[in-house]
């Protein structure tokens, strides 16, 4: 008994040493990079939300179509508007086995919370989905166009009340305030409440407690088709493909557009090969039928934008948002 155990122990020790040794000797990455172990797809939101759903879809698509050779797990790091997820990445600099799907609020949050270093913590990979938003009113509202709204607000800034979600100072909030500015009304006099979700805003509007929601156009389709709501205008530069009948607010004379987008990023310090690898895989993943289908259902448009354009886009967003947030005095000292 004793001798057999001793031999087994020896074997285990040797294997252990081999394992550790292999770790040290593991190839440091050739010209082409591929993941060599489990990849974590980190989500800056809790399980069950729409971002989480999209992340899981992508992970599923990648696994089903064998777009990578290793496994991929979805890890939730919710909190602080994606800041937790980004902090988590900070501990894995240069490692291509961690990619993160962030909601667009991450840019605003970083500025609001005075955390400018956030932008250095990530390497943009791709901008994936866009959630088109719009000004939504009840079907029986006297407002028919954005101009009607503008006129009404000029007469009385508190005449029409807005609801936005999900956090104060985010893109939706800024859109309303910017709109007020463009109309020539003191933004401080406009009545805006902040809800946890678009659903609450819609319920309050339908119940007559307020008049305008800034919500997603895709996921309110059923209410529109049922004749309960109308879209005053979409908050984009161009009309939304598939919803061309909704005029943009911009085309009606007020240059306000918001981008609510999901970005995929990698930790800082990853090599260009890693970036190239992932942008490739992601492009394939979002072309799969399941992801395309789901995005359609949820009213999201798919963007296939590469890393460089994404990086430029983020820088631009950061500048614009900084300016606005500073103007409106949201930034906390």
């Amino acid at each position, binding site marked *: 008994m004793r001798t057999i155990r001793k031999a087994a122990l020896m074997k285990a020790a040797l294997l252990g040493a081999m394992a550790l040794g292999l770790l040290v000797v593991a190839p440091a990455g050739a010209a082409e990079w591929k993941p060599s172990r489990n990849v974590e797809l980190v989500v800056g939101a*809790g*399980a*069950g*939300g*729409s971002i*989480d*759903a999209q992340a*899981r*879809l992508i992970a*599923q698509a990648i696994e089903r179509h064998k777009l990578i050779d290793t496994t991929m797990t979805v*890890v*939730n*790091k*919710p*909190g*602080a*508007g994606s*800041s*937790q997820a980004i*902090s988590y990445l900070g501990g894995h600099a240069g490692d291509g086995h961690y990619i993160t799907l962030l909601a667009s609020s991450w840019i605003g949050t970083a500025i*609001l*919370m005075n955390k400018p270093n956030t932008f250095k913590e990530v390497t943009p990979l791709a901008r994936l989905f866009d959630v088109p938003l719009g000004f939504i009113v009840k079907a029986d509202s006297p407002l028919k166009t954005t101009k009607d709204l503008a006129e009404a607000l000029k007469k009385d800034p*508190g005449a029409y*009340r807005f609801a936005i979600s999900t*956090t*104060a*100072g985010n893109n939706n909030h800024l859109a309303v305030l910017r709109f007020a500015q463009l109309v020539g009304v003191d933004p401080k006099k406009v*009545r*805006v*409440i*902040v809800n*946890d*979700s678009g*659903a*609450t805003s*819609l*319920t*309050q509007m*339908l*119940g*007559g*407690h*307020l008049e305008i929601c800034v919500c997603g156009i895709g*996921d309110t*389709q*059923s*209410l529109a*088709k*049922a004749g*309960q709501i109308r879209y005053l205008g979409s908050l984009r530069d161009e009309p939304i493909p598939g919803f061309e009948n909704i005029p943009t607010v911009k085309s009606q004379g007020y240059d306000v557009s918001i981008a609510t987008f999901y970005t995929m990023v990698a930790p800082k310090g990853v090599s260009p090969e890693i970036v190239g690898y992932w942008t490739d895989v992601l492009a394939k993943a979002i072309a799969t039928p*399941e992801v395309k289908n*789901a995005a359609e*259902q*949820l009213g999201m448009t798919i963007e296939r934008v590469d890393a460089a354009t994404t990086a430029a886009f983020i820088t631009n967003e950061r500048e614009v948002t900084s300016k606005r947030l500073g103007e409106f005095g*949201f930034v*906390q000292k």
Partner: protein
Amino acid sequence: MSAIHYILQGFETALLPLNLLYVFVGTLLGTILGILPGIGPVAGIALLMPVTYGMDPTSALILLCGMYYGAQYGGSATAILINTPGEASSMITCIDGYQMARKGRAGAALAVSAWGSFIAGTLSVIGLAALATALSKLALSFGPAEYFGLMIFSLAAVSALSGKSPGMSIIAVVTGMMIATIGLDSQTGSTRFTLGLQDLENGLAFPIIAIGLFALGEVFLTLEEKSQGKTEIIKLSGSTWMTREDWRRSAGPIVRGGVIGFFLGVLPGIGGVLASIISYATEVRLSKRPQEFGQGAIEGVAGPEAANNAAASGSFVPMLAMGIPGSVTTAVLLGVLIMFGIQPGPRMIDDNPGLFWGLVNSMYVGNVMLLILNLPLIGLFVRILYTPTGILMPLVLVFSVIGIYATDTNVVELEFLLAFGVLGYIFKKIEMPIAPLVLGLVLGDTLEKSFRQALILSGGDPSIFVKSPICLGLLLVSLACFLLPVVLPLLRSREIAESAENA
């Protein structure tokens, strides 16, 4: 006419062997997940979603609904057995349910929980089917001002729980409310009381506080008792099932809890927790033996359990009738429906009656399956209580840690969990009443938010609270609730004085 046709067809669908299998799997899985503190139906649904992609939509929904109900029940089981609320809405069940278990009546507590949930669940599914459209109008009429009135009313209703020390209760409620303010202010985004920690920016997640206070607090208490040598061997007294006396006492609370829970559940944002608290307070007020509450009164389990199950069904109303989710879970389910290309909403009942009734019926079947599955499990669950303390308590600790870690993978949260555990122990020692604290925690956010939103909408005009009939009504009733305990004794003593004079 055709509705009956669809109802029958719905049952046909719901009773297909394959769908029955799905209900079974769903409720079983849900029960297991519900047992894990902190992991609830949302996580379960999120995990199961990929599995459901290839399935028929109705079957997928049946599976997920089964899981939803299962999780509710699992959460109640742990609340009763080890004072660990598996679900936020099982917190109130801990109060009397655990005390019943300590007195050897765990079986009855589990049974009343199962039966209460079943009866209330069934009634509310019927309510859902019959009243969906009318109820959604009710839901719509509740705006910020009305919610404020409701919150004040809840405070008034729960003031009955102040027990021996109103002073402690006030401190408890305010403590709960203070904890609820930690995080980002909803209307302005300012950070409040986050101590510079990014982890606190979203506030302290509910499960952390609930499990810390209830489960860990109790573990520390039990370990202390053990080290003092006060080992209590819990003998099962009476039968594992409910006696006739139990039924007599529980019938009323179950029906009342069901009604309260259902109507509160219809209101978006109000969930099982508030419903169970109000039900508990109602039963205390109506009981002829209010001092029994907190020591293992079966009404204290029957009512809240019925309420939280009914609230779960009620939360489907806005989702199905308007396509607007009223809770996190229904939001996730809505996402699933949309994935399948089904847009719930005002047109769903007309456009897709087959699905609507299939879903409604599967909710009913889910309730039945839950009962069938869990009644036999009671015997098994109760055996857990026979586990030696020295083994059970460490396991509860690990359980709690898993539950919290699995959702957010954040070690800082675990540290807070531990801190609340210590607090929970201290609170029990100083006899700080837990129910008001929980209420303050649950209400605090909504109370402040609805007040401020109402003021924003009215442009700073406070008369909005009085102009709304619902709000005004609720405020007046609350005033009455607060004043009655003070005024009645005064009136009575005056009567006595007068009759003494006249004599």
